[in-house]
């Protein structure tokens, strides 16, 4: 029998039409293709081709920005799955969470989402801490630091709006305490200094039914309107804003010449 040189299986797969149609580059096993893969792969094109050694040293970067982004993805995926089970109404919100706890086997969806959210707040702070300690906000990255501060704020607001959704005692009282502050907003809160300036012919325009807190809650107290409002903010508005700013944040990291150091 004539012996033919058999190609290794990996080679056969990588040479197939199917493989080549999905990946636009050969396997990254030599220097040339390790460069090519970064340039031609959609998911990898966020990265540069090469990077200063310091930029990948864990003891320098703490990896906290990356961890935060990963947690953002975890929150998105578990959040979408939770939306399958959850209805934001007074009738159903609490019962749906109960069912999620008691009726789903191996259900740790809510745990992953909640602990991931807590962890995300912590990792954002640690990321900011590292960026500060290494002076990475200094020119040319001033503006990216500003974007980062807005992202920090959005992370807190995401967590805050999500806190209400289980509709238990913990939820509504934490949100009540948190949103009571809005009552005292200068000029725009009905218990804030200066709100009397907005009165026409002795009739006050800023009341408990028209002030900043009412705008936030959609009512005079944390009720069904608030639940709906926070649900929409939590699942749509803030994630979209965060995703938009994340894109800018990452793009600026690339354009400003890496994560830190002068250009």
């Amino acid at each position: 029998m004539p012996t033919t040189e058999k190609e290794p299986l990996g080679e056969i797969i990588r040479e197939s039409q199917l493989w080549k149609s999905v990946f636009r580059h050969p396997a990254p096993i030599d220097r040339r293709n390790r460069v090519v893969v970064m340039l031609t792969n959609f998911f990898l094109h966020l990265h540069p081709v090469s990077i200063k050694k310091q930029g990948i040293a864990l003891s320098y970067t703490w990896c906290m920005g990356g961890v935060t982004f990963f947690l953002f993805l975890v929150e998105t995926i578990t959040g979408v799955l939770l939306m399958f089970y959850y209805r934001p109404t007074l009738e159903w919100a609490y019962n749906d969470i109960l069912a999620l706890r008691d009726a789903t086997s191996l259900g740790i969806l809510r745990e992953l989402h909640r602990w991931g959210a807590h962890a995300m707040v912590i990792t954002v702070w640690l990321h900011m801490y590292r960026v500060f300690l290494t002076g990475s906000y200094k020119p040319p990255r001033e503006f990216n630091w500003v974007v980062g501060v807005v992202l920090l704020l959005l992370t807190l607001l995401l967590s805050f709006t999500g806190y209400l959704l289980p509709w238990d005692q913990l939820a509504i009282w934490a949100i009540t305490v948190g949103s009571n502050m809005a009552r005292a907003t200068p000029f725009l809160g009905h218990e804030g200094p200066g709100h009397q300036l907005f009165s026409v012919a002795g009739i006050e325009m800023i009341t408990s039914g028209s002030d900043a807190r009412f705008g936030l809650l959609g009512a005079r107290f944390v009720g069904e309107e608030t639940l709906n409002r926070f649900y929409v903010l939590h699942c749509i508005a803030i994630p979209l804003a965060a995703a938009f700013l994340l894109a800018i944040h990452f793009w600026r990291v690339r354009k400003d010449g890496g994560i830190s150091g002068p250009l």
Partner: protein
Amino acid sequence: MHSELKHITAVAPFLGSFYVVLFLLNAVMAYYLWHYRHKTAAAIFWMLIGGVYICVLSPLALSGHASMVPSMPEFIRNAADRALQGTMGAVVYSSASFLGLTFLYLGRRFFVKWWVAWSGLNLALLALGLSMTNQNFYSIAAKPDNVPIVGLVFLLGFFTWLGTAKAVENDDRAERGLPPTEKDDDEKVLVWPDLVYTELICMIVLTAVLLVWGIGLKAPLEEPASRVKTPNPSKAPWYFLGLQEMLVYYDPWMAGVVLPSVVVLGLMAIPYLDFNPRGNGYYTISQRQFSYLTFQFGFLVLWVTLIVLGTFLRGPNWNIFGPYEYWDPHKVEALNNVNLSQMFWENLLHRPLPKAPTGASGGAMALVILEREWLGIALTLGYLVLLPPIMATTVFRRFFVKMGFIRFMLMSNLMLMMMSLPIKMVLRWTFNLKYIIAIPEFFLNL
């Protein structure tokens, strides 16, 4: 007493495995020291410490007998409770955290030594384990939503140590005329495989951590929401507890709206105010003392320690309780805080507060209020308007010259706003001062 015993029996298996983890930590450290650093004596020492965990503490805890499970000695618990409870507790806690961090900063060359840091970690974890047998401590520290904050404290401790250690190393090198260690890593490497694989491993590790956390600790779910049953204490989510703590010293319009806005604006302004070109892209402390200290004061002293205070020590009626104290909702703290205007008119001049006659016009009322509160208004204006120019011509002269008028004014006002919190705290503790300016007629209390 009976429930206390039941609690210890219930928590004993957890503590048994906790001490096993502590043993493993020290064993890994000992192996690292022996194998990679060739420090045999140190390796034996930490192995012995680990031996105490696995041969003494863990079996005692696993025995499950309430009297055997190791717990924090009573005199330490009593001392901690006595020091940290009540209004004095806030003074002791805040002063201790401020002095402690100052001490850590000044002695940073000592504290970044690996064996000092490692001893600190061991002591902190041991104290945590020993305290867990106390029912009151456990019910707060092990509350599912508080677990992340316990984690935050340890993570911040670790990363502060790491950042400081690298900064100290770089500062030492700078003194010898060497570039920072980061500059040694200036050569470039390919992102595939070096970075891509690191990211992949990070993601896998993190997924594992989340899964274990999710399986081990159930997300809290309390009774269904009820607007008529107010829990005592009512707490904001943990990351806003620093703001809630400010409510003790400021009215909601300051603590909940103005100061948080100033914090956000101040953070955004940092890159435009810090004109120091050094320390760009490497850890250093001595090359940027001012910005480093300002940030650490705001972040560690004012933000993080207040969150820890609000989470672990603030109990019913927003009273401060010792870490091992029972949260008694009936405990009453006498509050007799007075306004500055009362101090001035009643205590100093022995006259009643100026009061507008009933039915006075708006203008007349405003004049009376101005007369009543003139001292507080003058002090506040002096603080915000007079201090910046004084700072510019004295201690911050060099800053003013470098920064120019607008940037200096922004920086000095942000700093004054930040310092207004500790100033108000100290005034409250020393003079029982309630408001510097009290104009309840217009909801304008400061």
